[in-house]
Protein backbone atom coordinates (compact mmCIF):
# COMPACT_ATOMS: atom_id res chain seq x y z
CA UNK A 1 0.00 0.00 0.00
CA UNK A 2 1.36 3.42 -0.94
CA UNK A 3 0.76 6.71 0.75
CA UNK A 4 -1.29 9.00 -1.45
CA UNK A 5 -1.63 12.13 0.61
CA UNK A 6 0.45 13.10 3.57
CA UNK A 7 0.80 16.14 5.80
CA UNK A 8 3.84 16.82 7.93
CA UNK A 9 3.37 19.10 10.95
CA UNK A 10 0.89 21.27 9.12
CA UNK A 11 -0.39 24.27 11.05
CA UNK A 12 -2.71 27.08 10.10
CA UNK A 13 -3.22 30.28 12.03
CA UNK A 14 -5.76 33.02 11.41
CA UNK A 15 -4.14 35.86 13.26
CA UNK A 16 -3.84 34.70 16.84
CA UNK A 17 -6.33 31.90 16.30
CA UNK A 18 -4.84 28.49 15.62
CA UNK A 19 -7.19 26.54 13.33
CA UNK A 20 -4.86 23.60 12.75
CA UNK A 21 -1.95 22.62 14.95
CA UNK A 22 0.87 20.33 13.94
CA UNK A 23 -1.17 17.82 11.99
CA UNK A 24 0.64 14.69 10.78
CA UNK A 25 -1.70 12.69 8.67
CA UNK A 26 -1.52 9.98 6.03
CA UNK A 27 -4.08 8.76 3.54
CA UNK A 28 -3.14 5.46 1.94
CA UNK A 29 -4.28 4.31 -1.46
CA UNK A 30 -7.45 2.31 -1.13
CA UNK A 31 -8.09 3.80 2.29
CA UNK A 32 -11.63 4.41 3.56
CA UNK A 33 -10.74 6.95 6.14
CA UNK A 34 -13.01 9.12 8.29
CA UNK A 35 -12.21 12.39 9.98
CA UNK A 36 -14.43 13.21 12.91
CA UNK A 37 -14.50 15.79 15.62
CA UNK A 38 -16.79 18.20 17.40
CA UNK A 39 -18.03 21.35 15.69
CA UNK A 40 -15.26 23.86 15.17
CA UNK A 41 -12.55 21.23 15.45
CA UNK A 42 -11.02 22.43 12.18
CA UNK A 43 -12.12 19.59 9.91
CA UNK A 44 -13.12 21.77 6.97
CA UNK A 45 -10.03 23.92 7.45
CA UNK A 46 -7.98 20.77 7.14
CA UNK A 47 -9.71 19.84 3.87
CA UNK A 48 -9.08 23.34 2.60
CA UNK A 49 -5.39 22.93 3.39
CA UNK A 50 -5.30 19.67 1.48
CA UNK A 51 -7.02 21.09 -1.59
CA UNK A 52 -5.14 24.37 -1.70
CA UNK A 53 -8.04 26.69 -0.87
CA UNK A 54 -5.91 27.71 2.10
CA UNK A 55 -2.14 27.63 2.38
CA UNK A 56 -0.65 26.32 5.64
CA UNK A 57 1.23 28.68 7.95
CA UNK A 58 3.86 25.99 8.38
CA UNK A 59 4.44 22.37 7.49
CA UNK A 60 4.28 20.51 4.19
CA UNK A 61 1.64 18.71 2.17
CA UNK A 62 2.77 15.82 -0.01
CA UNK A 63 0.94 14.02 -2.80
CA UNK A 64 2.53 10.68 -3.60
CA UNK A 65 5.73 12.03 -2.11
CA UNK A 66 5.66 15.23 -4.12
CA UNK A 67 5.59 18.54 -2.26
CA UNK A 68 2.37 20.34 -3.18
CA UNK A 69 2.26 22.71 -0.20
CA UNK A 70 2.00 25.90 -2.25
CA UNK A 71 0.46 24.46 -5.39
CA UNK A 72 -2.68 26.09 -6.78
CA UNK A 73 -6.05 24.46 -6.43
CA UNK A 74 -6.53 23.79 -10.13
CA UNK A 75 -3.17 22.03 -10.40
CA UNK A 76 -3.96 19.78 -7.45
CA UNK A 77 -7.20 18.85 -9.14
CA UNK A 78 -5.27 17.87 -12.23
CA UNK A 79 -3.06 15.67 -10.05
CA UNK A 80 -6.12 13.86 -8.75
CA UNK A 81 -7.39 15.49 -5.57
CA UNK A 82 -11.11 16.18 -5.63
CA UNK A 83 -13.55 17.18 -2.95
CA UNK A 84 -17.19 17.79 -2.16
CA UNK A 85 -18.34 20.76 -0.15
CA UNK A 86 -20.13 20.84 3.15
CA UNK A 87 -22.54 23.42 1.73
CA UNK A 88 -23.51 22.67 -1.86
CA UNK A 89 -21.56 24.50 -4.50
CA UNK A 90 -23.49 23.78 -7.64
CA UNK A 91 -24.25 25.55 -10.90
CA UNK A 92 -27.73 26.37 -9.77
CA UNK A 93 -29.12 27.73 -13.01
CA UNK A 94 -28.03 24.71 -15.05
CA UNK A 95 -29.44 21.22 -15.46
CA UNK A 96 -28.12 18.26 -13.50
CA UNK A 97 -26.53 16.85 -16.61
CA UNK A 98 -24.84 20.15 -17.44
CA UNK A 99 -23.41 20.27 -13.93
CA UNK A 100 -21.72 16.95 -14.39
CA UNK A 101 -20.82 17.72 -17.99
CA UNK A 102 -18.82 20.76 -16.90
CA UNK A 103 -16.80 18.66 -14.49
CA UNK A 104 -16.08 15.85 -16.93
CA UNK A 105 -15.36 18.19 -19.83
CA UNK A 106 -12.79 19.88 -17.65
CA UNK A 107 -11.09 16.60 -16.84
CA UNK A 108 -10.94 15.24 -20.37
CA UNK A 109 -9.75 18.58 -21.74
CA UNK A 110 -12.89 19.28 -23.78
CA UNK A 111 -13.70 22.52 -21.98
CA UNK A 112 -11.46 24.75 -24.03
CA UNK A 113 -13.10 23.60 -27.25
CA UNK A 114 -14.85 26.56 -28.83
CA UNK A 115 -16.11 25.75 -32.27
CA UNK A 116 -18.04 22.50 -31.89
CA UNK A 117 -21.28 22.33 -29.90
CA UNK A 118 -21.12 20.82 -26.42
CA UNK A 119 -23.82 18.39 -27.49
CA UNK A 120 -21.53 16.72 -30.00
CA UNK A 121 -19.12 15.53 -27.32
CA UNK A 122 -20.97 12.24 -26.92
CA UNK A 123 -18.09 10.78 -24.93
CA UNK A 124 -18.58 13.39 -22.22
CA UNK A 125 -22.34 13.03 -22.23
CA UNK A 126 -22.20 9.23 -22.09
CA UNK A 127 -19.84 9.31 -19.16
CA UNK A 128 -21.97 11.88 -17.38
CA UNK A 129 -25.12 9.82 -17.94
CA UNK A 130 -23.41 6.71 -16.65
CA UNK A 131 -22.35 8.56 -13.53
CA UNK A 132 -25.87 9.92 -13.01
CA UNK A 133 -27.13 6.38 -13.41
CA UNK A 134 -24.98 5.08 -10.56
CA UNK A 135 -26.17 7.93 -8.37
CA UNK A 136 -29.81 7.30 -9.35
CA UNK A 137 -29.98 10.80 -10.80
CA UNK A 138 -30.61 9.91 -14.45
CA UNK A 139 -34.29 10.71 -14.24
CA UNK A 140 -33.46 14.18 -12.97
CA UNK A 141 -30.85 14.86 -15.64
CA UNK A 142 -32.92 17.54 -17.34
CA UNK A 143 -33.97 19.37 -14.19
CA UNK A 144 -32.34 22.58 -13.07
CA UNK A 145 -30.59 22.43 -9.73
CA UNK A 146 -32.66 25.21 -8.21
CA UNK A 147 -35.80 23.09 -8.62
CA UNK A 148 -34.30 19.96 -7.06
CA UNK A 149 -34.87 18.73 -3.47
CA UNK A 150 -31.87 19.29 -1.24
CA UNK A 151 -31.07 15.64 -0.86
CA UNK A 152 -30.84 15.22 -4.60
CA UNK A 153 -28.66 18.29 -4.80
CA UNK A 154 -26.23 16.59 -2.41
CA UNK A 155 -25.96 13.74 -4.88
CA UNK A 156 -25.18 16.16 -7.69
CA UNK A 157 -22.50 17.63 -5.46
CA UNK A 158 -20.98 14.15 -5.28
CA UNK A 159 -21.48 13.53 -8.99
CA UNK A 160 -19.53 16.64 -9.96
CA UNK A 161 -16.67 15.51 -7.76
CA UNK A 162 -16.71 11.94 -9.06
CA UNK A 163 -16.64 13.35 -12.56
CA UNK A 164 -13.08 14.33 -11.77
CA UNK A 165 -12.13 10.64 -11.44
CA UNK A 166 -9.96 11.48 -8.44
CA UNK A 167 -7.28 9.36 -6.85
CA UNK A 168 -7.89 11.16 -3.60
CA UNK A 169 -11.50 11.82 -2.76
CA UNK A 170 -12.33 14.20 0.08
CA UNK A 171 -15.97 14.18 1.17
CA UNK A 172 -17.07 16.98 3.46
CA UNK A 173 -20.27 15.75 5.14
CA UNK A 174 -21.63 14.21 1.94
CA UNK A 175 -24.75 12.85 3.61
CA UNK A 176 -25.76 15.96 5.53
CA UNK A 177 -29.30 16.79 4.46
CA UNK A 178 -29.77 13.55 2.55
CA UNK A 179 -32.79 11.59 3.72
CA UNK A 180 -31.55 8.47 5.51
CA UNK A 181 -33.41 6.31 3.01
CA UNK A 182 -31.12 7.68 0.30
CA UNK A 183 -27.82 7.88 2.14
CA UNK A 184 -27.00 4.35 1.06
CA UNK A 185 -26.79 5.65 -2.52
CA UNK A 186 -23.72 7.60 -1.50
CA UNK A 187 -22.05 4.58 0.08
CA UNK A 188 -22.98 2.40 -2.88
CA UNK A 189 -21.45 4.93 -5.23
CA UNK A 190 -18.25 4.99 -3.22
CA UNK A 191 -18.19 1.20 -3.15
CA UNK A 192 -18.41 1.21 -6.92
CA UNK A 193 -15.25 3.29 -7.20
CA UNK A 194 -11.94 1.65 -8.08
CA UNK A 195 -10.45 0.18 -4.94
CA UNK A 196 -7.16 2.02 -5.34
CA UNK A 197 -8.75 5.40 -4.58
CA UNK A 198 -8.13 6.92 -1.19
CA UNK A 199 -11.30 8.30 0.35
CA UNK A 200 -11.44 10.68 3.30
CA UNK A 201 -14.86 11.45 4.71
CA UNK A 202 -15.97 13.97 7.27
CA UNK A 203 -19.35 13.36 8.81
CA UNK A 204 -21.37 13.70 11.96
CA UNK A 205 -23.52 10.70 11.13
CA UNK A 206 -21.77 8.07 13.24
CA UNK A 207 -23.73 5.23 11.67
CA UNK A 208 -22.41 6.24 8.29
CA UNK A 209 -18.87 6.74 9.58
CA UNK A 210 -18.72 3.37 11.28
CA UNK A 211 -20.29 1.58 8.36
CA UNK A 212 -17.89 3.18 5.94
CA UNK A 213 -14.53 3.72 7.58
CA UNK A 214 -11.67 1.30 8.02
CA UNK A 215 -9.75 3.96 9.86
CA UNK A 216 -10.81 7.00 11.87
CA UNK A 217 -8.94 10.14 12.86
CA UNK A 218 -10.37 12.31 15.62
CA UNK A 219 -9.64 16.02 15.42
CA UNK A 220 -10.14 18.25 18.45
CA UNK A 221 -9.33 21.96 18.54
CA UNK A 222 -7.28 21.77 15.37
CA UNK A 223 -5.04 18.93 16.54
CA UNK A 224 -5.15 15.15 16.11
CA UNK A 225 -6.61 13.73 19.24
CA UNK A 226 -6.71 10.05 18.37
CA UNK A 227 -6.42 7.73 15.39
CA UNK A 228 -7.24 4.07 14.86
CA UNK A 229 -9.66 1.49 13.54
CA UNK A 230 -13.35 2.08 14.20
CA UNK A 231 -13.14 -0.52 16.90
CA UNK A 232 -10.25 1.19 18.63
CA UNK A 233 -11.85 4.60 18.37
CA UNK A 234 -15.18 3.28 19.56
CA UNK A 235 -13.46 1.80 22.56
CA UNK A 236 -11.28 4.78 23.35
CA UNK A 237 -12.64 6.29 26.58
CA UNK A 238 -11.06 9.69 25.93
CA UNK A 239 -12.76 9.94 22.56
CA UNK A 240 -16.01 8.90 24.09
CA UNK A 241 -15.57 11.59 26.69
CA UNK A 242 -14.77 14.51 24.40
CA UNK A 243 -16.65 13.55 21.35
CA UNK A 244 -18.88 10.58 21.15
CA UNK A 245 -20.50 11.34 24.46
CA UNK A 246 -21.12 14.84 23.29
CA UNK A 247 -22.47 13.72 19.95
CA UNK A 248 -24.77 11.24 21.61
CA UNK A 249 -26.54 14.12 23.27
CA UNK A 250 -27.05 15.99 20.06
Amino acid at each position, binding site marked *: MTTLLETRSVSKNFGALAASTDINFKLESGARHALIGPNGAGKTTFINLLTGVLLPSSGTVLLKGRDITTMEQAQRVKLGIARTFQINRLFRGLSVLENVYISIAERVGA*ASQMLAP*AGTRRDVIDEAMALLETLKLANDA*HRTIAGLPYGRQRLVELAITLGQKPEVLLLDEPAAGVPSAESHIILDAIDALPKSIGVLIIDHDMDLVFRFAQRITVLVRGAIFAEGTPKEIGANPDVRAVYLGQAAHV
Partner: protein
Amino acid sequence: MSAPAPAYENPGAQALTGRHRLRLWEPLPWLLALAFYFLFPRHLGFGTELLITVLFALSLDLALGYAGIVTLGHAAFFGAGAYTVGMLAHHGIWNEPITSLFAAAAVAAAIGFASGLVLLRTTGLTLLMLTLCTMALLEEAANLGHDWTGGFDGLTGITIPPLFGLFEFNPLFPKVQYLYILGVLLVCFVFVRTLVYSPFGQSLTGIRENTLRMHAVGAPVRTRLIVCYTISAAVAGVAGGLWAQANAYVNLSTLGLDRAATVLIILVLGGYGRLYGAFVGAVAYMVLAHFLSKLYPTAWQLGLGLMLVIIALFFRGGILGMGDVITNWLRKLRAPS
Protein backbone atom coordinates in the same frame (compact mmCIF):
# COMPACT_ATOMS: atom_id res chain seq x y z
CA MET B 1 -31.84 -5.02 -13.58
CA SER B 2 -32.66 -3.13 -16.74
CA ALA B 3 -30.00 -1.88 -19.07
CA PRO B 4 -29.23 1.85 -18.81
CA ALA B 5 -31.13 3.85 -21.38
CA PRO B 6 -29.09 5.23 -24.26
CA ALA B 7 -28.09 8.82 -23.59
CA TYR B 8 -30.22 10.30 -26.31
CA GLU B 9 -33.48 8.97 -24.90
CA ASN B 10 -33.02 10.78 -21.64
CA PRO B 11 -34.68 14.22 -21.73
CA GLY B 12 -31.65 15.85 -20.10
CA ALA B 13 -29.28 14.35 -22.63
CA GLN B 14 -31.65 15.23 -25.41
CA ALA B 15 -31.72 18.84 -24.29
CA LEU B 16 -27.94 18.96 -24.27
CA THR B 17 -27.38 17.23 -27.60
CA GLY B 18 -30.14 19.16 -29.30
CA ARG B 19 -29.85 22.67 -27.94
CA HIS B 20 -27.45 23.96 -30.54
CA ARG B 21 -29.72 22.89 -33.40
CA LEU B 22 -31.43 25.63 -35.27
CA ARG B 23 -34.95 26.16 -34.03
CA LEU B 24 -37.86 26.93 -36.29
CA TRP B 25 -38.28 30.49 -35.16
CA GLU B 26 -34.63 31.41 -35.31
CA PRO B 27 -34.69 32.83 -38.85
CA LEU B 28 -37.50 35.12 -37.71
CA PRO B 29 -35.40 38.06 -36.41
CA TRP B 30 -33.43 38.05 -39.63
CA LEU B 31 -36.55 38.00 -41.76
CA LEU B 32 -37.93 40.86 -39.70
CA ALA B 33 -34.73 42.80 -40.23
CA LEU B 34 -35.07 42.26 -43.96
CA ALA B 35 -38.74 43.20 -43.87
CA PHE B 36 -37.79 46.40 -42.08
CA TYR B 37 -35.47 47.22 -44.95
CA PHE B 38 -38.30 47.02 -47.46
CA LEU B 39 -41.09 48.45 -45.33
CA PHE B 40 -39.34 51.41 -43.74
CA PRO B 41 -36.80 52.76 -46.19
CA ARG B 42 -37.02 56.14 -44.46
CA HIS B 43 -36.10 54.71 -41.08
CA LEU B 44 -32.90 53.00 -42.14
CA GLY B 45 -30.75 55.50 -40.23
CA PHE B 46 -32.45 54.31 -37.11
CA GLY B 47 -32.22 50.76 -38.40
CA THR B 48 -28.44 50.83 -38.79
CA GLU B 49 -28.08 52.24 -35.30
CA LEU B 50 -30.32 49.49 -34.01
CA LEU B 51 -28.36 46.70 -35.69
CA ILE B 52 -25.08 48.06 -34.38
CA THR B 53 -26.56 48.22 -30.89
CA VAL B 54 -27.68 44.61 -31.17
CA LEU B 55 -24.15 43.57 -32.06
CA PHE B 56 -22.70 45.60 -29.22
CA ALA B 57 -25.20 44.15 -26.75
CA LEU B 58 -24.40 40.68 -28.05
CA SER B 59 -20.72 41.23 -27.30
CA LEU B 60 -21.60 42.31 -23.79
CA ASP B 61 -23.84 39.28 -23.39
CA LEU B 62 -20.86 37.04 -23.98
CA ALA B 63 -18.90 38.63 -21.14
CA LEU B 64 -21.72 39.50 -18.80
CA GLY B 65 -24.51 37.09 -19.62
CA TYR B 66 -22.39 33.99 -20.11
CA ALA B 67 -19.22 34.52 -18.10
CA GLY B 68 -20.80 36.76 -15.46
CA ILE B 69 -18.23 39.56 -15.83
CA VAL B 70 -20.12 42.59 -14.54
CA THR B 71 -18.67 45.54 -16.41
CA LEU B 72 -19.64 49.16 -16.77
CA GLY B 73 -16.87 49.89 -19.23
CA HIS B 74 -17.71 47.92 -22.33
CA ALA B 75 -17.84 51.05 -24.45
CA ALA B 76 -14.06 51.11 -24.16
CA PHE B 77 -13.93 48.39 -26.79
CA PHE B 78 -16.68 49.85 -28.92
CA GLY B 79 -14.76 53.12 -28.95
CA ALA B 80 -11.45 51.40 -29.61
CA GLY B 81 -12.95 49.78 -32.69
CA ALA B 82 -14.59 52.98 -33.84
CA TYR B 83 -11.42 55.01 -33.45
CA THR B 84 -9.35 52.35 -35.16
CA VAL B 85 -11.52 52.50 -38.25
CA GLY B 86 -11.88 56.26 -38.01
CA MET B 87 -8.22 57.04 -37.56
CA LEU B 88 -7.07 54.64 -40.25
CA ALA B 89 -9.47 56.26 -42.70
CA HIS B 90 -9.01 59.86 -41.58
CA HIS B 91 -5.24 59.75 -41.77
CA GLY B 92 -5.45 58.09 -45.17
CA ILE B 93 -3.85 54.82 -44.10
CA TRP B 94 -6.55 52.28 -44.85
CA ASN B 95 -10.30 52.46 -45.44
CA GLU B 96 -11.52 49.30 -47.15
CA PRO B 97 -14.63 48.47 -45.07
CA ILE B 98 -14.27 44.78 -44.32
CA THR B 99 -10.55 44.62 -43.64
CA SER B 100 -10.92 47.73 -41.49
CA LEU B 101 -13.29 45.76 -39.31
CA PHE B 102 -10.60 43.15 -38.72
CA ALA B 103 -8.27 45.90 -37.63
CA ALA B 104 -10.95 47.23 -35.30
CA ALA B 105 -11.45 43.77 -33.83
CA ALA B 106 -7.72 43.28 -33.37
CA VAL B 107 -7.16 46.57 -31.57
CA ALA B 108 -10.19 46.10 -29.33
CA ALA B 109 -9.12 42.55 -28.57
CA ALA B 110 -5.63 43.72 -27.66
CA ILE B 111 -7.04 46.26 -25.22
CA GLY B 112 -9.48 43.68 -23.88
CA PHE B 113 -6.68 41.19 -23.35
CA ALA B 114 -4.38 43.68 -21.66
CA SER B 115 -7.03 45.09 -19.35
CA GLY B 116 -8.55 41.67 -18.70
CA LEU B 117 -5.17 40.35 -17.65
CA VAL B 118 -5.05 42.93 -14.88
CA LEU B 119 -8.70 43.59 -14.01
CA LEU B 120 -10.24 40.14 -13.99
CA ARG B 121 -8.60 39.26 -10.70
CA THR B 122 -11.30 41.32 -9.04
CA THR B 123 -15.07 40.99 -8.79
CA GLY B 124 -18.16 42.93 -7.77
CA LEU B 125 -17.98 46.64 -7.14
CA THR B 126 -14.21 46.72 -7.55
CA LEU B 127 -14.45 45.23 -11.01
CA LEU B 128 -17.30 47.57 -11.86
CA MET B 129 -15.20 50.57 -10.88
CA LEU B 130 -12.07 49.31 -12.58
CA THR B 131 -13.81 48.72 -15.89
CA LEU B 132 -15.45 52.10 -15.60
CA CYS B 133 -12.20 53.90 -14.83
CA THR B 134 -10.39 52.12 -17.64
CA MET B 135 -13.01 53.33 -20.06
CA ALA B 136 -12.91 56.85 -18.63
CA LEU B 137 -9.14 56.76 -19.03
CA LEU B 138 -9.42 55.88 -22.70
CA GLU B 139 -12.03 58.57 -23.18
CA GLU B 140 -9.81 61.16 -21.55
CA ALA B 141 -6.87 59.98 -23.63
CA ALA B 142 -8.93 60.32 -26.81
CA ASN B 143 -9.92 63.80 -25.68
CA LEU B 144 -6.35 64.85 -25.01
CA GLY B 145 -4.90 63.27 -28.14
CA HIS B 146 -6.66 65.91 -30.16
CA ASP B 147 -4.28 65.84 -33.12
CA TRP B 148 -4.86 62.16 -33.69
CA THR B 149 -8.41 61.64 -32.55
CA GLY B 150 -10.07 64.96 -33.25
CA GLY B 151 -10.73 65.33 -29.50
CA PHE B 152 -14.09 66.62 -28.44
CA ASP B 153 -15.12 67.59 -31.98
CA GLY B 154 -14.53 64.08 -33.19
CA LEU B 155 -12.96 62.82 -36.38
CA THR B 156 -14.62 63.88 -39.58
CA GLY B 157 -13.63 63.43 -43.16
CA ILE B 158 -13.82 59.67 -43.01
CA THR B 159 -14.43 58.44 -46.52
CA ILE B 160 -15.43 54.86 -46.96
CA PRO B 161 -14.93 53.46 -50.45
CA PRO B 162 -17.79 51.46 -51.99
CA LEU B 163 -18.29 48.00 -50.55
CA PHE B 164 -16.64 45.37 -52.79
CA GLY B 165 -15.89 48.32 -55.03
CA LEU B 166 -19.56 48.39 -56.05
CA PHE B 167 -21.96 49.64 -53.42
CA GLU B 168 -21.72 53.24 -52.33
CA PHE B 169 -22.54 54.36 -48.77
CA ASN B 170 -25.21 57.08 -48.90
CA PRO B 171 -25.44 59.20 -45.73
CA LEU B 172 -29.07 60.18 -46.28
CA PHE B 173 -30.57 56.84 -47.29
CA PRO B 174 -28.26 54.27 -45.74
CA LYS B 175 -29.54 51.23 -47.63
CA VAL B 176 -26.12 49.83 -48.36
CA GLN B 177 -24.95 50.44 -44.80
CA TYR B 178 -28.00 48.66 -43.46
CA LEU B 179 -27.51 45.47 -45.46
CA TYR B 180 -23.79 45.49 -44.89
CA ILE B 181 -24.24 45.80 -41.13
CA LEU B 182 -26.93 43.14 -41.16
CA GLY B 183 -24.49 40.82 -42.92
CA VAL B 184 -21.70 41.49 -40.45
CA LEU B 185 -24.14 41.03 -37.57
CA LEU B 186 -25.19 37.67 -38.95
CA VAL B 187 -21.60 36.48 -39.21
CA CYS B 188 -20.78 37.66 -35.70
CA PHE B 189 -23.98 36.16 -34.34
CA VAL B 190 -23.23 32.75 -35.82
CA PHE B 191 -19.79 32.95 -34.23
CA VAL B 192 -21.11 33.94 -30.81
CA ARG B 193 -23.87 31.36 -31.01
CA THR B 194 -21.36 28.62 -31.81
CA LEU B 195 -19.20 29.78 -28.95
CA VAL B 196 -21.87 29.80 -26.28
CA TYR B 197 -23.11 26.33 -27.18
CA SER B 198 -19.60 24.91 -27.20
CA PRO B 199 -17.97 23.19 -24.22
CA PHE B 200 -16.06 26.45 -23.75
CA GLY B 201 -19.35 28.35 -23.49
CA GLN B 202 -20.63 25.71 -21.09
CA SER B 203 -17.63 26.27 -18.86
CA LEU B 204 -18.23 30.03 -18.98
CA THR B 205 -21.74 29.51 -17.65
CA GLY B 206 -20.16 27.36 -14.98
CA ILE B 207 -17.94 30.28 -13.96
CA ARG B 208 -20.94 32.56 -13.92
CA GLU B 209 -22.99 30.17 -11.82
CA ASN B 210 -20.30 29.23 -9.33
CA THR B 211 -16.74 30.46 -9.69
CA LEU B 212 -15.51 28.67 -6.59
CA ARG B 213 -16.75 25.33 -7.81
CA MET B 214 -15.09 25.89 -11.17
CA HIS B 215 -11.79 26.27 -9.34
CA ALA B 216 -12.57 23.05 -7.49
CA VAL B 217 -13.08 21.09 -10.71
CA GLY B 218 -9.70 22.31 -11.87
CA ALA B 219 -10.81 24.89 -14.43
CA PRO B 220 -8.29 27.62 -15.30
CA VAL B 221 -10.92 30.22 -14.41
CA ARG B 222 -8.91 33.37 -14.97
CA THR B 223 -7.57 32.22 -18.31
CA ARG B 224 -11.08 31.38 -19.48
CA LEU B 225 -12.37 34.76 -18.35
CA ILE B 226 -9.55 36.58 -20.11
CA VAL B 227 -10.16 34.63 -23.32
CA CYS B 228 -13.87 35.36 -23.13
CA TYR B 229 -13.30 39.03 -22.33
CA THR B 230 -10.91 39.34 -25.25
CA ILE B 231 -13.36 37.77 -27.69
CA SER B 232 -16.15 39.93 -26.34
CA ALA B 233 -13.96 43.00 -26.76
CA ALA B 234 -13.21 42.03 -30.35
CA VAL B 235 -16.91 41.73 -31.18
CA ALA B 236 -17.57 45.08 -29.49
CA GLY B 237 -14.73 46.49 -31.57
CA VAL B 238 -16.42 45.28 -34.74
CA ALA B 239 -19.62 47.01 -33.62
CA GLY B 240 -17.67 50.21 -33.04
CA GLY B 241 -15.96 49.90 -36.39
CA LEU B 242 -19.33 49.54 -38.10
CA TRP B 243 -20.56 52.60 -36.26
CA ALA B 244 -17.65 54.66 -37.55
CA GLN B 245 -18.27 53.45 -41.09
CA ALA B 246 -22.02 53.98 -41.03
CA ASN B 247 -21.76 57.49 -39.61
CA ALA B 248 -18.60 58.55 -41.43
CA TYR B 249 -17.29 60.03 -38.23
CA VAL B 250 -16.17 59.11 -34.73
CA ASN B 251 -16.32 61.07 -31.54
CA LEU B 252 -15.98 60.68 -27.80
CA SER B 253 -19.54 59.42 -27.39
CA THR B 254 -18.33 56.03 -28.63
CA LEU B 255 -16.27 55.72 -25.46
CA GLY B 256 -18.54 57.26 -22.88
CA LEU B 257 -20.33 56.02 -19.81
CA ASP B 258 -23.59 56.85 -21.57
CA ARG B 259 -22.99 54.22 -24.18
CA ALA B 260 -21.71 51.65 -21.69
CA ALA B 261 -24.65 52.14 -19.35
CA THR B 262 -27.16 52.10 -22.20
CA VAL B 263 -25.91 48.82 -23.60
CA LEU B 264 -25.98 47.30 -20.14
CA ILE B 265 -29.56 48.45 -19.67
CA ILE B 266 -30.50 47.09 -23.06
CA LEU B 267 -29.04 43.70 -22.33
CA VAL B 268 -30.57 43.34 -18.88
CA LEU B 269 -33.85 44.59 -20.28
CA GLY B 270 -33.88 41.97 -23.01
CA GLY B 271 -32.58 39.24 -20.74
CA TYR B 272 -28.91 38.41 -20.37
CA GLY B 273 -27.32 35.04 -20.98
CA ARG B 274 -30.02 34.27 -23.53
CA LEU B 275 -28.40 35.06 -26.85
CA TYR B 276 -31.55 36.73 -28.17
CA GLY B 277 -31.80 39.08 -25.21
CA ALA B 278 -29.56 41.49 -27.10
CA PHE B 279 -32.05 41.59 -29.97
CA VAL B 280 -35.17 41.96 -27.87
CA GLY B 281 -33.61 44.48 -25.50
CA ALA B 282 -32.18 46.67 -28.24
CA VAL B 283 -35.42 46.75 -30.17
CA ALA B 284 -37.54 47.47 -27.10
CA TYR B 285 -35.25 50.13 -25.71
CA MET B 286 -34.43 51.91 -28.93
CA VAL B 287 -37.92 51.91 -30.33
CA LEU B 288 -39.28 53.29 -27.08
CA ALA B 289 -36.51 55.85 -26.69
CA HIS B 290 -36.84 56.86 -30.29
CA PHE B 291 -40.59 57.30 -30.39
CA LEU B 292 -41.24 58.42 -26.86
CA SER B 293 -38.59 61.07 -27.29
CA LYS B 294 -40.28 62.16 -30.48
CA LEU B 295 -43.72 62.44 -28.90
CA TYR B 296 -42.66 63.77 -25.53
CA PRO B 297 -39.23 65.24 -25.98
CA THR B 298 -38.86 66.31 -22.35
CA ALA B 299 -40.46 63.38 -20.60
CA TRP B 300 -39.44 60.20 -22.36
CA GLN B 301 -36.89 59.57 -19.67
CA LEU B 302 -39.65 59.19 -17.13
CA GLY B 303 -41.28 56.36 -19.05
CA LEU B 304 -37.96 54.69 -19.65
CA GLY B 305 -37.04 54.90 -15.99
CA LEU B 306 -40.38 53.47 -14.96
CA MET B 307 -39.97 50.58 -17.36
CA LEU B 308 -36.52 49.77 -16.00
CA VAL B 309 -37.79 49.83 -12.43
CA ILE B 310 -40.71 47.56 -13.24
CA ILE B 311 -38.53 45.09 -15.11
CA ALA B 312 -36.01 44.99 -12.28
CA LEU B 313 -38.68 44.54 -9.63
CA PHE B 314 -41.04 42.10 -11.28
CA PHE B 315 -39.42 40.50 -14.31
CA ARG B 316 -35.90 39.53 -13.35
CA GLY B 317 -35.07 37.75 -16.57
CA GLY B 318 -35.88 40.83 -18.61
CA ILE B 319 -38.40 40.69 -21.43
CA LEU B 320 -37.43 37.17 -22.47
CA GLY B 321 -37.71 36.12 -18.83
CA MET B 322 -41.19 37.57 -18.89
CA GLY B 323 -41.89 35.17 -21.74
CA ASP B 324 -40.67 32.28 -19.59
CA VAL B 325 -42.89 33.34 -16.72
CA ILE B 326 -45.90 33.39 -19.00
CA THR B 327 -45.05 30.05 -20.63
CA ASN B 328 -44.66 28.42 -17.22
CA TRP B 329 -47.93 29.85 -16.14
CA LEU B 330 -49.70 28.54 -19.23
CA ARG B 331 -48.14 25.14 -18.70
CA LYS B 332 -49.42 25.06 -15.14
CA LEU B 333 -52.88 25.96 -16.37
CA ARG B 334 -52.81 23.05 -18.74
CA ALA B 335 -51.17 20.60 -16.36
CA PRO B 336 -54.17 19.66 -14.15
CA SER B 337 -56.09 18.16 -17.11
